[in-house]
């Protein structure tokens, strides 16, 4: 906290909600949230790297505890995929993709557990005063995921039905293939694609962002004095424990929706 003793609540929250923004060109769009990108890539590398490190030495005999844990995780994901995806070999793409989503989103969400002020304090010591450690509280990160899933679902829809089939489906489903119904069908499908993508990303973003804000409020309370510190600690602990559920649940929901959307893309109407 650069503000020190003259702490002002809105400044405090504003401070923690400021991205480390690096402009790369003119305009609002041409900038990079270095904190989001670096943290998320780092987390992805750590999570998937750890899994890779474990499975590289995977034995088909009796697994050690490390391997058993990774297998448990992978079989959990694979079970979900197995229950939803019935359109070919799930090992070729959708199961590993679901694993990636689950691991990555879980880790990004879990950054919420780190005490924000410690992270900010440590990073300001090395000259990074503004750093948001939770990538999924950045709308860019969640939309990057959901738009990627949208593109994947369109890709798989075209791969499964051919481009003509896919276009035909946009105009002739779900209401019928009568020419008068084409606009309605197209509109419906557009709304469906947009709403899927929006709800997919905003659900994750909203949950994690709200969790972050609640932590900020609790830590603000903790800075008001001894009583505030005690209750801030107590409620912070409670919220953190509850947040474990939210972190895993949101990652799980995000993974499930990814599987569902990609599976739905394979279905013929």
């Amino acid at each position, binding site marked *: 906290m650069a503000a020190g003793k003259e702490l002002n609540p809105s400044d405090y929250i504003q401070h923690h909600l400021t991205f480390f923004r690096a402009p790369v060109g003119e305009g*609002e769009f041409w900038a990079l949230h270095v904190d989001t990108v670096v943290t998320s890539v780092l987390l992805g590398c750590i999570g*998937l790297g750890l899994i*890779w490190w474990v499975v590289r030495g*995977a034995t*088909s005999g009796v697994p050690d505890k490390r391997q058993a844990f990774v297998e448990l995780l992978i079989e959990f994901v694979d079970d979900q995929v197995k229950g939803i995806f019935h359109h070919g070999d799930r090992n070729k793409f959708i199961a590993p993709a679901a694993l990636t989503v689950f691991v990555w989103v879980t880790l990004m969400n879990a950054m919420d557990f780190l005490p924000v002020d410690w992270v900010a304090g440590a990073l300001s010591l090395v000259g990074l005063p503004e750093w948001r450690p939770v990538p999924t509280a950045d709308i860019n990160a969640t939309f990057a995921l959901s738009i990627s899933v949208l593109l994947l679902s369109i890709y798989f829809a075209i791969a499964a039905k051919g481009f003509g089939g896919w276009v035909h489906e946009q105009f002739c489903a779900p209401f019928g293939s009568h020419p008068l119904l084409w606009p309605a069908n197209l509109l419906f499908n557009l709304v469906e694609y947009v709403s899927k993508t929006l709800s997919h990303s905003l659900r994750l973003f909203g949950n994690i962002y709200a969790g972050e804000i609640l932590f900020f409020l609790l830590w603000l309370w903790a800075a008001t004095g001894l009583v505030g510190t005690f209750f801030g600690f107590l409620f912070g602990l409670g919220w953190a424990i509850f947040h474990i559920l939210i972190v895993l649940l949101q990652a799980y929901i995000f993974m499930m929706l990814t599987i569902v959307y990609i599976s739905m893309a394979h279905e013929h109407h």
Partner: protein
Amino acid sequence: MSFNLTLLAQMLAFAAFILFTVKVVWPHLLRAIETRQKTIADGLAAAEQGKKSLEVSTRQADETVKQGRDRAAEIIAQAEKRGAQMVDEARTQAKDEGNREKAAAQAEIEQQVARAREMLREQVAALAVAGAEKILRREVDAKAHADLLAQLKQEVR
């Protein structure tokens, strides 16, 4: 709260991570898991096989034991029968032998009796002749009465 280049960067990172998992992580583990599943399935099949063959060999062993027992009982019965037969035979043989021996002894006895009687008769005849000789010597010429004496001897016999 605005979109910027981060969106594209994150999408790229996401694509890279998915590619990494699809190409590198998943096949490793899949191979290990599949190999293990196969090993387990093979083991279960082998166990099943072993159980089946154990069952078969147990049945075979039971059969063999039963056969052996039957055979032994048969052999014992045969032996008993044979034993009884042998005893019977021996008894018959002994009886026959005894009878034969007895018959032979009897014949011997009869023979001996006949011989003794012969001897006795001869001796009596000799005695009679001797007696007659003694009587006649005084009054009869032996030479003159030789025919008579011989006749007498013949008669005594």
